[in-house]
């Protein structure tokens, strides 16, 4: 009986390992090509890297304004993360309070999630232009300063905090802002981690909005730089893949650092009731 159960577990793990390996093959191929000077059309393709070196990374660093693109992406991502943490925490906390129209506000936010960004891009552009923020860091981060999904992540996390704690804090004389800062946020580290990862990933990978509002190469972010690189470079597969790895690496690093909080944040409140 036990042996049968063990073999089922073993088989399940074997299938999972094979599936994971299949998922990782494209990443492996990108990484492998980036450290060799192999052309994508080389035949027969080599499974293992031959004569590996990191010179393609050096080429990408110097031959395109990579440091500038990197700096722009980092600044925009930090702005997006800061905006998400502050605005979403405030909004999420507000939605846990009882006030006239609370249900309507929640439904309004939920219904706004159904509208794709492409449908609102023209008004977003016009508002950004009116504010004089075209071709600026704040303008690049503006649509991502608050995201509805992240508001609900905070809301679910705040609702999991026992009401008695909040009431006790209120009896001690704390106002709403201090309850949020002193009670809610320290107990919502998973939601903060989720917000950081989602805000970072969305702003890091954002392509359409920067494409529309940047006017100069010096304000372009990494995805735009990658698209430009793709459009005018030929026969530089290893450099292109090195560029891809350099774009992906920070996102993967942030995810690996905060994955525990991320998963906990997404599932918090999911098993309630």
């Amino acid at each position, binding site marked *: 009986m036990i042996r049968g159960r063990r073999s089922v577990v073993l088989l399940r793990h074997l299938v999972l390992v094979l599936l994971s390996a299949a998922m990782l093959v494209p990443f492996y191929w990108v990484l492998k090509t980036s450290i060799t000077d192999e052309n994508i059309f080389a035949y027969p393709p080599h499974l293992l890297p031959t004569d590996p*070196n990191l*010179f393609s990374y*050096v*080429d990408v660093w*110097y*031959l395109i304004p990579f440091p500038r693109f990197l700096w722009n992406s980092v600044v925009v991502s930090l702005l997006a993360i800061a905006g998400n943490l502050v605005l979403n925490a405030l909004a999420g906390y507000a939605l846990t309070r009882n006030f006239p129209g609370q249900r309507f506000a929640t439904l309004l936010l939920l219904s706004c999630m159904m509208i794709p960004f492409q449908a609102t891009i023209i008004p977003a552009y016009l508002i950004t232009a009116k504010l004089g923020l075209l071709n600026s860091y704040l303008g690049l981060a503006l649509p991502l300063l608050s995201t509805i999904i992240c508001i609900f992540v905070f809301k679910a996390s705040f609702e999991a905090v026992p009401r008695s704690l909040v009431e006790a804090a209120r009896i001690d004389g704390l106002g709403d802002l201090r309850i949020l800062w002193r009670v809610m946020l320290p107990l919502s580290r998973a939601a903060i981690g989720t917000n950081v990862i989602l805000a970072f990933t969305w702003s890091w990978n954002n392509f359409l909005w920067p494409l529309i509002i940047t006017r100069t190469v010096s304000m372009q972010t990494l995805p735009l730089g990658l698209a430009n690189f793709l459009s005018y*470079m030929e026969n*530089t597969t290893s*450099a292109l893949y090195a560029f891809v790895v350099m774009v992906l690496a920070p996102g993967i*690093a942030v995810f690996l*650092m*905060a994955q525990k909080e991320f998963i906990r944040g997404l599932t918090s409140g999911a098993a309630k009731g």
Partner: protein
Amino acid sequence: MRRWRAWLLNRFVVVPVVLALIVLGWNIYVSLHAHGVIAGEVVDASGRPVAGATVTLYHLNFITEVKTGETRTNGQGRFRFTDNNSHLIELQAAAGGATSPRVTVRLWFRAQDRDLASPLTLHGLAPAS
């Protein structure tokens, strides 16, 4: 004290700090080894040094190459560029109507000092009498 320790010794602080230290160390190394010196030797097919050969330096891009410098070898067949500011270069030697194959040199950073391990070889050069 314990609270500060918990704040400082978590992966969100340790990983960026380690990365920052690596970047700092690398930049110090680069600043100490980036004088733009490219040195090497020109020899004939039999391996003897060639004096007075012209060595040309090209800067490469993904799609272009630009001639940026020229120098001559000394009595020992040695040459030296002191103002290279690229990380991807090509060198070619010429003397007495013979030329060497272009040699691509890939450096780890701009203006890295490098003494070429193998010489530029002039093929088809008449042996010196």
